[in-house]
């Protein structure tokens, strides 16, 4: 008979792993995420709210914000419609080269945005392969807001598609078959049955695309010409102000963008039940 009872670890009511894990998580996120975000807010208002407000209401700043909103909006509209269409075709039909197409659509995320912008310039710029044919006729999209929309479309291409396609893939065919047997035309089925089931994916895909487009920098700076008050988006504005040494101005807009992204993702989070496909 052993005189020394072996030590046994009892797991009673208190499990130390729980607070420990949560603590480690928060601790890791502090320097990586929380503090950088907080520093933008702290620094932006540290010089006085009046300076902050002045920076915010500068006409070029407001222009930059509006331009970002507008260009991102149109890029989003295009990519959501295209994403819907592409997801439908690539999910429903099987054909030679289908997988290659799917991979190609997803490529833009792997390409550095500066490369994307540069490629667009090489193609559509005034001396670009295709651009040089259009310029004599007065069509030149580079260095205009249109170029920003084009660059945004390229860079955010796979986002809405990537959210919508899985929904198509897992969508039961029998829903559409049921609708057909009930007597609906293809279009009626799409409108009444398919689209409502995609509602959540469309909205979250759109918001994702929009948020990403607003923050786009690498390609925009190349194709827009970065002309303040003409083609300078919010991220470009921040960068320009930083370069000029006007840190407060840069910060003010940075805060606006950060708040805006925060808003978008909060809405996405809280509305996720509504957005989920049943």
């Amino acid at each position, binding site marked *: 008979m052993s005189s020394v009872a072996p030590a046994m670890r009892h797991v009673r009511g208190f499990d130390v792993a729980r607070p420990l894990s949560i603590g480690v998580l928060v601790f890791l996120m502090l320097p990586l995420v929380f503090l950088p975000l907080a520093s933008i807010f702290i620094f932006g208002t540290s010089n006085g709210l009046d300076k902050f407000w002045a920076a915010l209401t500068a006409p070029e700043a407001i222009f930059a914000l509006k331009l970002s909103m507008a260009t991102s909006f149109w890029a989003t509209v295009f990519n959501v419609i295209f994403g819907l269409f592409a997801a439908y075709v690539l999910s429903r039909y099987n054909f030679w080269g289908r997988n290659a197409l799917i991979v190609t659509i997803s490529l833009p995320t792997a390409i550095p945005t500066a490369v994307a912008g540069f490629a667009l310039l090489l193609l559509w710029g005034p001396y670009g392969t295709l651009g040089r044919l259009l310029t004599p006729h007065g069509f030149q999209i580079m260095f205009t807001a249109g170029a920003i929309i084009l660059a945004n479309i390229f860079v955010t291409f796979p986002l809405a598609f990537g959210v919508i396609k899985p929904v198509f893939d897992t969508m*039961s065919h*029998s*829903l559409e*078959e*049921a*609708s*057909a*047997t*009930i*007597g*609906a*035309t293809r279009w*009626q089925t799409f409108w*009444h*049955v398919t689209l*409502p*089931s995609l*509602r959540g994916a469309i909205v979250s895909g759109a918001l994702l695309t929009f948020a990403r487009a607003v923050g786009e920098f690498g390609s925009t700076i190349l194709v827009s010409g970065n002309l303040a008050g003409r083609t300078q988006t919010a991220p470009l504005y921040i960068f320009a102000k930083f370069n000029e040494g006007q840190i407060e101005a840069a910060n003010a807009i940075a805060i606006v963008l950060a708040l805006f992204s925060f808003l978008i993702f909060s809405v996405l989070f809280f509305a996720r039940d509504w957005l989920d*496909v*049943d």
Partner: protein
Amino acid sequence: MKAKETLIPKREEPEPTRPTAAASVVGLSKRFGKASILENISFDVAEGEVLVLLGASGSGKTTILRIIAGLEMPYTGKVILHGRDVTELPARERGVGVIFQSYALFPKMTVEKNIGYGLRIRKRKRKQIRETVNELLSLVQLEEHRKKYPSQLSGGQQQRVAIARTLAYKPEVLLFDEPFGALDTQTRVHLRREIRALLKKVNVPSIFITHDQEEALELGDRVAVLNVGHIEQIGTPFEIYNYPATEYVATFLGAANVLEAVVRKDFLEVGSARIPATLDQEKFREGDCVNIVFRPEDVSLSRGDLPRSTHPRLSSARIEEIAFVGAYERLRLRVDASDECNTDETPFYLTTETPDRKPTKSIIATRPKPEASSIRLHVGEKVSVALTSFTVLPKKGTKG
């Protein structure tokens, strides 16, 4: 119970006074590459009739349903609904009502919106839609759930919505794709009775597909048994159960014992027994080797060598196993019979002392509870086996 002395296998010929079919398929076939999925499928469904397509997985029953619905195209053959050849028409022009296995209710629409869908896309007036929806809701007894979404309903309720949804646009025929598959046994049994009552009430011809033979027998006015793409037999549940046309039908519909027999003049030689039978001369000739098929409940047992009743005696048997299965008792018995036909003209005699070199076979018999309780039997006991009913089938490979 008097045994039937003459047993003639029934054919699946249409009765001469049969009314014009509400729906029929003629000569359907379908291939997948070189493999043949369906071969020469033809049947009718009469007005107000419930026809069940019964078969195992891969028998092609789902394919038939989808072809009738218009979701798949046949290789050859025709689909005719109320006299209209719809083979070339797409699903939405056929006017069929399909109840899918998963019910396929539109998840983002309420119950009433689901039911009214068919009318909405036909651009009916709002008033008419409302009235029809109300009617149907009371028919399937779901009025209080009208504003709910499919995810909030039970399986049985969803199914009723699916049915109501098709009835809204007065379909020519209702097609049910294994509708009870996702439900537990109790609900199943309960529901199929309800559905059958409902179908009889609305009087729309219906085709069910299922792999559950009990379901098929309870649901269908007639049942078609499918085996790997072709129809083995179509008949009423009574007919196919008691007079199976092939061994496949016999064994699919329930437990069946199959024994070898030789056709003689006026009787069948089964092992050492002679069972009186008058057979269709055109199908069976003297000397032919045939199968006799009988169900466990067709077996009558008595102690000792003497038969208990006037039923033809099959053999002596030794009880190998007894199992108590609630409502009845199941026994496994070893009888004198064989798998090979004894073509020797001379019958041989058996006594209980005859050594086991004689061919024997196991059969399954069941005894209802009252009988099992009153006459108790034990393993190893010797009993006398008689048949209350049986069917004669030609040997596999040759069909009548």
